[in-house]
């Protein structure tokens, strides 16, 4: 069975119970070790977005999670076990927050705010459920500018756990809509963050109409998150500035900053003892901070920027997926280890965390076949001024194990560069860029032997065009002997000596994608056009072999086999076809893969070839297909054997919860277990009679009412003896 497996989801909420860091990630809750940054458990079970996590106040090893699917689940996060599911009778309800001082969940159901009261009782079976509609006519926060915002506040110590304040969202055009809220743990004080960057501290709201507030203002953008420290001495706030601000409660003039944390701060969590802070960032990162001074650990997922503008590419050396990462960076993400390797700074300029600024963005990246060269294109569009484009070429440095900037070409073209590829031929190192200005340029690595100090650098070798048409795509054949460039409706095929060999065209519709066949199918050239055509030309006869009317949004060739993957968009969904150019029937097809268009896809070669016996999964043997959905989720295909292996490994991870699970521990722990098994293989632990009355009496009676130890001793020893009947 093939299943799309989500690798990365944007939604992150965090909670720090001492040694473990819990983080809601999409439909699951991930448990990280705060010291080793390893993901220990993945608590799966929810069927929709997890919207909140809260610790069980009566048992610090348990955690509740609530989700948009309308259920509240209780987990043991150290073992990763689901203890209890608390479904809500309300269909289509959406739990938005949970506060467990009175064990109360707040749900939004059909624009109604409903408080579900769960009385805290020891018995898990009997649960009186009280349901009360607190407020009708509530628009979901942030939905409409005219909508009234609701602040949901759980108050410690008061029997009524929720208080609501209504305030018109647009008072005199001021942007004072609420963005976040936090309660002081000890005093009756509520902090709210606002869109205009102000923080208001509300006090005295128990008395009717006597509420009052004070305002703190440092953030220039909206305040994304607020959190009081457990003692209530400090208030932490964060926003787009990516600065963690620590306000001293009651002395609001004093504040501390922890700047340059990366992306915009979306959530802050504090460990119960207040020693660790934790911030999650919009670029899919969690930072663990020790007492607001030192960043102690960073848990980084696939960096999620505003949008991925580069194609997905695979670094041939590290086999890492390369795409846009932090602003102005390329990220190298290891698919096999599901871990970010490093970010490569392309733009090499300071990024300013402010909205509405036009800054350089990396828009194209390409590797040559051996991974020695990386070409990047960055551009900046400023309103009212010309487009700024830089083409940069990076050489791989064996010593530093990273890419070093070799050549920078400012304004390589007069207009946007639409595509770029390296020639795969082993003789020359050549790069072709095509642009909307109607030209394609070939860049060659020229060896200037006379200037020894400089070394090799890149220069333009050839400028080509075709009837002043705008080129849209380009492709090299597998051996580098042919270059195909699509000029609107015409495909031109060029030889390495820049001779125009032939032109192919299948009007109507401009060419969108071009792809040469590989291995046994290398005589074919495939092209897709905007007018729903998928064409296959035979290059030997220079004629159309076949064409079919499908709206192909993306065409991708597997570099290790003849297979081609075509993503077709049809009525809001994407379909996938995997086929060989020479064969009439597709190898594999899946309808309604995901909603929306698939924007980017790549074949990542596997480390070891799979020996899959299933017929429809054989195309995955050599390489794995990854693609981005419209919601910027990275998905992949996996085979059944892989899934089984995943399951097995997750079982193996369940280990003793007394020690933090680090890779080192896993290694050592296994070793120790083996040793133990070797030394006394037959040893069996005798079950101690723990339920004995005498032991209970000794251990649970308060010390001041206990009889003297000499009296108890004999009774205690006797209880430990195994009675003759049971021994036999």
């Amino acid at each position: 069975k093939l299943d799309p497996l989500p690798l990365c989801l944007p939604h992150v909420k965090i909670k720090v119970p001492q040694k473990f860091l819990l983080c809601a990630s999409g439909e699951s809750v991930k448990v990280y070790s705060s010291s080793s940054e390893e993901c220990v458990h993945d608590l799966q079970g929810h069927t929709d977005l997890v919207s909140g996590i809260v610790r069980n106040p009566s048992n610090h090893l348990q955690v509740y999670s609530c989700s948009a699917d309308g259920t509240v689940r209780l987990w043991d996060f150290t073992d990763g076990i689901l203890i209890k599911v608390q479904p809500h009778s309300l269909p289509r309800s959406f739990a938005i927050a949970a506060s467990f001082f009175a064990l109360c969940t707040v749900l939004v159901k059909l624009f109604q705010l409903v408080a579900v009261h769960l009385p805290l009782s020891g018995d898990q079976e009997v649960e009186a459920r009280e349901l009360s509609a607190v407020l009708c006519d509530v628009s979901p926060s942030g939905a409409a500018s005219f909508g009234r915002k609701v602040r949901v506040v759980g108050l410690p110590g008061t029997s009524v756990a929720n208080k609501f304040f209504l305030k018109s969202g647009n008072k005199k055009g001021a942007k004072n809509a609420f963005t976040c809220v936090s309660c002081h743990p000890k005093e009756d004080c509520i902090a709210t963050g606002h869109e205009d960057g102000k923080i208001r501290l509300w006090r005295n709201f128990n008395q009717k109409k006597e509420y009052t507030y004070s305002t703190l203002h440092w953030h220039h953008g909206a305040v994304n998150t607020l959190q009081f420290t457990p003692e209530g001495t400090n208030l932490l706030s964060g926003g787009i500035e990516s600065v963690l601000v620590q306000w001293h409660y009651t002395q609001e003039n004093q504040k501390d900053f922890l700047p340059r944390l990366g992306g915009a701060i979306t959530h802050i969590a504090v460990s119960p003892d207040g020693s660790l802070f934790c911030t999650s960032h919009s670029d899919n990162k969690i930072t663990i901070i020790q007492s607001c001074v030192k960043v102690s650990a960073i848990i980084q997922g696939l960096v999620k920027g505003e949008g991925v503008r580069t194609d997905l590419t695979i670094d041939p050396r590290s086999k890492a997926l390369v795409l846009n990462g932090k602003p102005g960076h390329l990220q190298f993400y290891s698919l096999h280890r599901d871990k970010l390797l490093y970010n490569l700074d392309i733009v090499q300029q300071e990024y300013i965390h402010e909205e509405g600024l036009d800054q350089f963005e990396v828009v194209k990246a390409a590797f040559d076949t051996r991974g020695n060269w990386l070409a990047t294109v960055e551009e900046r569009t400023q309103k009212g001024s010309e487009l700024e484009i830089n083409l940069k070429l990076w050489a791989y440095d064996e010593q530093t194990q990273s890419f070093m900037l070799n050549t920078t070409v400012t304004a390589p073209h007069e207009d946007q560069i639409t595509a770029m590829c390296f020639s795969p031929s082993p003789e020359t190192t050549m790069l072709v860029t095509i642009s909307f200005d109607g030209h394609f340029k070939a860049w060659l690595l020229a060896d200037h032997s006379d200037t020894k100090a400089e070394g090799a650098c890149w220069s333009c070798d050839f400028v080509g065009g075709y009837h002043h048409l705008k080129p849209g795509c380009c492709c090299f054949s597998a051996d580098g002997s042919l270059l195909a460039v699509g000029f609107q409706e015409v495909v031109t095929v060029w030889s390495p000596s820049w001779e125009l060999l032939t032109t192919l065209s299948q009007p109507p519709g401009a060419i969108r994608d071009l792809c040469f066949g590989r291995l046994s199918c290398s005589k074919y050239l495939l092209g897709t056009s905007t007018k729903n055509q998928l064409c296959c030309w035979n290059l030997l006869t220079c004629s159309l072999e076949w064409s079919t009317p499908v709206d192909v949004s993306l065409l991708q060739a597997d570099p290790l086999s003849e297979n081609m993957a075509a993503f077709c968009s049809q009525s809001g969904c994407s379909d996938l076809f995997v086929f060989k150019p020479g064969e009439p029937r597709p190898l594999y097809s899946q309808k309604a893969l995901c909603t929306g268009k698939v924007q980017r896809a790549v074949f990542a070669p596997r480390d070891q070839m799979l020996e899959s016996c299933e017929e429809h999964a054989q195309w995955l043997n050599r390489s794995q297909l990854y693609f981005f959905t419209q919601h910027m989720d990275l998905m992949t295909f996996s085979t059944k054997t892989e899934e089984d292996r995943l399951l097995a490994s997750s079982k193996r991870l369940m280990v003793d919860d007394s020690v933090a699970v680090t890779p080192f521990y896993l290694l050592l722990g296994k070793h120790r277990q083996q040793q133990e098994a070797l030394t006394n293989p037959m040893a069996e632990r005798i079950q101690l009679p723990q339920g004995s009355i005498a032991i209970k009496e000794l251990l649970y009676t308060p010390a001041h009412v206990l009889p003297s130890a000499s009296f108890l001793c004999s009774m205690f020893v006797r209880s430990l003896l195994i009675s003759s009947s049971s021994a036999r």
Partner: protein
Amino acid sequence: MGEFKVHRVRFFDYMPTAIRAMAFNAHTERLALARMDGSVEIFNFTDHYFQEKVIPGKDSRSIESLCWVGGRLFSAGLNGEIAEYDLENLRPKYSLEAYGGPIWTIISNTQGTQLAIGCEDGTVKLFEVLEEHIQFERNLDRQKGRIISLSWHPSGTHIAAGMMDMIRVFDVPTGHAVQRLLVDRGFGGSKSRETVVWSVAFLSDHTVVSGDSAGKVQVWDGHTGTLVKTHLVTKWDVLALSVSKDESSVVAGTSEGTVIQFQFIAPTLHQQQDKEWVRTRTFKNHTHDVRALAEIETAIVSGGMDTHLVVRPLLEKFDEKSHASGLRKIHFPHVIANNINLSCAKKAGLLLFQFPGQLELWRLGDSDEHGKPGDRLPLKRKPEKLLLLKRKGEDHICCSALSSCGGWLAYSTVSSVRIYRLQTDNNNISITKVSKLPKALHSAHQLCFSSDSSKMFAASSQSSVLVIALTQSECKYVHTLKPKSGSRQPIHLMTTSGDGKWLAAANSDCEIHVYNLQKLKLHCIVPVYGSCPSAMGIHPTTNNMTVVHADQQLFEYSIVEKQYTDWSRKLQKQGLHNVWLDRDTPVTHVTFNSKNPNQVVLHDMHMFCIIDQMFIHPCPCHNGLIGFSGLFYNQMTLRSLSEQERPSHLHAFKICKTFQVSLLFLASLLDDQSLVVVERPLLAITSQLPAPVRQKKFAT
């Protein structure tokens, strides 16, 4: 609406002066406000913040502090004198030298039996308040350094005094200082400078709150003399403090123009005992120093160097959005605009501007051309200043008048009245002072000429009006018109009818008396309405009197029939539109269109309105509809409608809001159907203010 040739007069460079001190009388709900030039204004907070009275200033008088004792108002200033004001005759009653050098502050105890002043020489002097006078009682222990601020403990036994670098607490019966609270100096460069304790407040639980020049608001325990809490609120000075009546809130005004509130709050619901002072809200309504503050029950009133009086309502004290809960900025005294410092000679096209120190007479410009609505006409003759008349003596001018023919000019101070004869022939102007004045005419609250310029009316004490006959050679006392009610309040409005038969006079008791000038006797009293009249005018043809009150209500009263007209009754029955009622500033002037007898021209500080009695009145029942204010101010939409649709959208109120960014002082219709609008752009006033304290602004 009608089309007029408009004289937009912008050469009136009136400059208000800064607010120095403020005192609120919670019993009568009157706010007394002292300005830098020594003038005192009284605002009635029960009557839509209407400025009831103005006591003109004097050159040698400066007021540092104001204080109410019962209904009596006292002031003290740097000239070393204590003055009590006669609020009926709008003048200082007496002033008393305190013999302690400049006086910085004056306070009274809650019982109203004693006054305390803080002097430059370091003494706190106690005065006994007698029936008609005050008498020096004794000094408290003399200190080194000046006494800047004082606060009396509500029980009357202790006084806290703010000084340089310290606060002293005095025991009143013995007169000894019992506590010495040392105030820290500022940081850095200001360490060498003494800290001035600008303001102290003594609360009934013996907590002393102080505001000082180092920018701190400090809370002290008055029993032990220990510092409880320091709030550093600004880099500059904390100039003023005010305590709410229930002592749960203190507001502090700073040099940055902010007003910061502190509240006495329990940390949680269950710990009501350990309350503490917490800094809460910050209000920024001023650009310059906040020198005077008063926290009243539902609002915070502040004033300062930027000359505005701001009433900032505390929104949590209101149940719902209402008229009273809106922020209001009283830019300038509106009585001044109320035809007192401006007069317009309708026939001669002359304008008289009154300043505290001088009078200016201008001739309006002229133009022959005609243009489309909105055009600027080229001037044939530029407006010119004909005359600059400086006053004699120290007292500031309190009222002035110009007759409509332009032949007579009169002004009054608190001590004297002067009348001048003006002769203008073409470009020459001659002015002669009328030398012999009747003895009865020694001062006037209001001056007014009859329409044919044969008589002058002067509002005198006890709501009486003196009638003076004017002839070419002399002026002669004719009669004193006295009201029957025996009111002692001063007249603040006076108007005559076009035919010279009627005179109407309104006083601060909200009474309007109409006198028959031919019989020289009281004709009738307009039924007393609860709010003070802010403007009135008698129609030239019908002799109906239009009265607008401070609460924006509008009445039309037929003098001849001695009753309200049908139009007025209908209007009252239907009720006025909410948008009209919610305006902040009262109507300051009423005039009529001689061509169209149905039109009444009104204006307040920000808008100009013509009421056409022929049209239906906009119905107030649409109040709840959003955007109905747009329907009320519908002159622009009307213009875009076709001729057929227009009548259905017409209503009686035609409002022109061209003057929103400036202040409108006078809109008057001249005889040749041209409109005179005297305006003063707000920007021109703010640009003349001194530079505010420098503040670091984000991203500059």
